[in-house]
């Protein structure tokens, strides 16, 4: 990387810091309005109780549990993408890692709120710490999610330290500068500091993988440890882990595509990045398909009394439209879309990711709701249709993720400067640099 590209990279990574243009304020106000509506719905629910939801005695878990699994899953993919790229020392990772790690944190912050939204007595949340029972999957979840949350924050923060120092040095806003100074922990870029940071990031990249696997495994065990036919499956934990990675990589593709366009990062994030991320998504999607077939085949072939009604409802019954939409539109079509070589790599990757994310939400619905509604006693199928409260909270929480990202990247560099220097090396300064005007923006 020559001097000019290097400077241009830094300029592109840091230009939005502390600025707010018209588009920024429009986006922030629209998203904030949605989040506010979601918060209003939550307050409405807290004041009145869970009866304002579509939940009932038979289907007592619904949108909130689905969203919890969905958003935490998304987070996992972000963390995994970054960790894998670091561990395999992929040279092309530099412009992506920051976006992936921030997506992980944003999605996790949203997903981790859902267990509290779902509680009948959220005021007693701390009872889980006070009276925690080691044998309860709910406690496993709380422990795993909070450990993972700390780890993913550290994982985001460590590579940010040198960039905070860069921002500190380049900014002339006294008050903000002091905050960056504190956050940068006195980073000067000495060889000792570099070595420790390198080691720290390496450790976190290794640690974050088992932590994320554990989070999604215990989320799966929340279901798999029960006696319900649709849930009691040994393959559930790995299935959930794969689903999480799949939806997470799709989320990273969407986030990267959006920031690439809005922040003008086309020079550094190219079709090649999307192709590689698409390969990752395809591998995960094929793996998921395989796990899913394995699950349904072994359960459906034997057709045990407890499992059959659920499988029937999913394959040919009332949940069949949702299931086949997921399988075809949410899995097979996007994988094909992303797999074929040819033009419009970025557009295809974005289209495929959108379908995958929608499909993975639907799949979580197909896990939670039929499993709950199935007649475990000689009764009819349970019914569940969410109310405006659940829908509003869901939309609000989904809007919170881009909102967090947009605000975050108005304060912190959108691409990791330090990472790029690690990968490419810092070029020697030159006296004269000629910048042709036609090189501005655009490009491959």
């Amino acid at each position, binding site marked *: 990387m020559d001097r000019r590209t290097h400077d241009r990279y830094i300029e592109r990574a840091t230009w939005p810091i502390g600025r707010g243009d018209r588009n920024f304020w429009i986006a922030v106000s629209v998203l904030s309005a949605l989040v506010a509506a979601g918060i209003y719905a939550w307050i409405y629910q807290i004041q009145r*109780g*869970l009866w304002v939801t579509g939940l009932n005695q038979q289907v007592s878990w619904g949108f909130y549990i689905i969203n919890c699994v969905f958003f935490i899953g998304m987070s996992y993919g972000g963390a995994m993408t970054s960790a894998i790229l670091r561990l395999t020392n992929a040279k092309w990772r530099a412009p992506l890692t920051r976006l992936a790690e921030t997506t992980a944190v944003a999605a996790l912050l949203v997903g981790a709120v859902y267990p509290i939204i779902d509680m009948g*007595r959220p005021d007693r949340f701390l009872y889980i710490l006070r009276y925690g029972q080691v044998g309860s999957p709910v406690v496993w979840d709380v422990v795993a999610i909070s450990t993972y949350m700390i780890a993913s924050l550290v994982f985001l923060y460590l590579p940010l330290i040198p960039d905070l120092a860069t921002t500190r040095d380049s900014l002339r806003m006294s008050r903000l500068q002091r905050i960056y100074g504190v956050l940068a922990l006195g980073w000067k870029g000495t060889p000792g500091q570099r070595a420790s940071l390198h080691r720290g990031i390496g450790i976190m990249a290794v640690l974050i993988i088992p932590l994320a696997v554990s989070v999604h495994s215990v989320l799966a065990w929340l279901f798999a440890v029960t006696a*319900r036919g649709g849930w009691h499956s040994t393959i559930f934990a790995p299935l959930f882990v794969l689903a999480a990675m799949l939806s997470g990589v799709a989320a990273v593709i969407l986030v990267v595509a959006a920031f690439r366009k809005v922040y003008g990062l086309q020079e550094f994030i190219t079709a090649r990045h999307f192709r590689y991320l698409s390969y990752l998504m395809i591998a995960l999607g094929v793996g998921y398909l395989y796990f899913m077939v394995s699950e349904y085949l072994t359960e459906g072939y034997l057709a045990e009394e407890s499992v059959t009604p659920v499988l029937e409802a999913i394959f040919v019954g009332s949940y069949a439209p949702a299931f086949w939409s997921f399988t075809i539109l949410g899995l097979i079509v996007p994988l094909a879309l992303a797999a074929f070589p040819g033009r419009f790599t970025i557009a295809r990757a974005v289209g495929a990711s959108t379908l995958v994310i929608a499909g993975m939400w639907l799949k979580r619905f197909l896990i939670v709701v039929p499993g709950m509604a199935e007649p475990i006693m000689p009764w009819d199928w349970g019914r569940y249709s969410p109310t405006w409260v659940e829908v509003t909270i869901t939309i609000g929480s989904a809007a919170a993720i881009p909102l967090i990202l947009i605000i975050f990247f108005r304060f912190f560099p959108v691409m990791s400067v330090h990472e790029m220097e690690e990968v490419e090396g810092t070029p020697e300064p030159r006296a004269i640099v000629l910048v042709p005007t036609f090189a501005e923006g655009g490009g491959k």
Partner: protein
Amino acid sequence: MAGPVSRRQLLVGLGGLGASAAVAVAAGMSPITFEAAAESEHAPDAKPRQWAMVIDLRNCDGCKKCTEACQETHHLPQNFEWIKVFQVKDKHGGEYFMPRPCFQCENAPCLRVCPVAATYRVADGVVLVDQDRCIGCRMCMAACPYGARYFNYVDPPKYDNPFGHATPEFPVPQQKGTVGKCMFCVHRTAEGQLPACVEGCPMKAIYIGDLVEDVATNGDRTVRLSTFLKENDAFRYKEELGTGPRVYYIAGHGQLLDF
């Protein structure tokens, strides 16, 4: 036991003293009261009772009086069927009714999954819910294979608890945002009364019993529990799950057949 028996004697019978009490009454002696028997539990060597229930489906006509009695006792809303009467259609077109209380499982799935130990099992084998502790996560409802647990989505009907505050043994009124269920009316059995559903059943299809003393009563007659279960081929619902339900069913279609 011949002839009608008074409730006092029944409850004595429940204490495992049925036969001897009958003799005692016949001999003009005052029978040992249930309360006295309950007190004797506090002796160091006394074993706690092990409550069990037998539901004789041959007698159940699906009138749902048990549900009504339960709701009245616990001041529950209409859709809270701690003992719920299912109308079961079998594969061959036959129909029968099946009341389902909480099975007070010996290996209770609901108890294991509770994150705050709000659900616990007491010495006499009954599974209780401490609604002052329950956080309302509903994990137990997902875990219960019998759908015996009910979440208080709404405020329960107003009721002034004479003891000042609801207890796990007498959780009335229920707390909104927490889970409740049948607990074999431990507040009544401790006082020497039959559970509300047992008392409310006009068909006398429900028996409450003690596995330690091996007796059970439906308020009308007292039986030797193990013999009664064996002779009538009693079964436990979804026993294969290994939950160890404390409720036994005697199969039938709502009519007594005398072969």
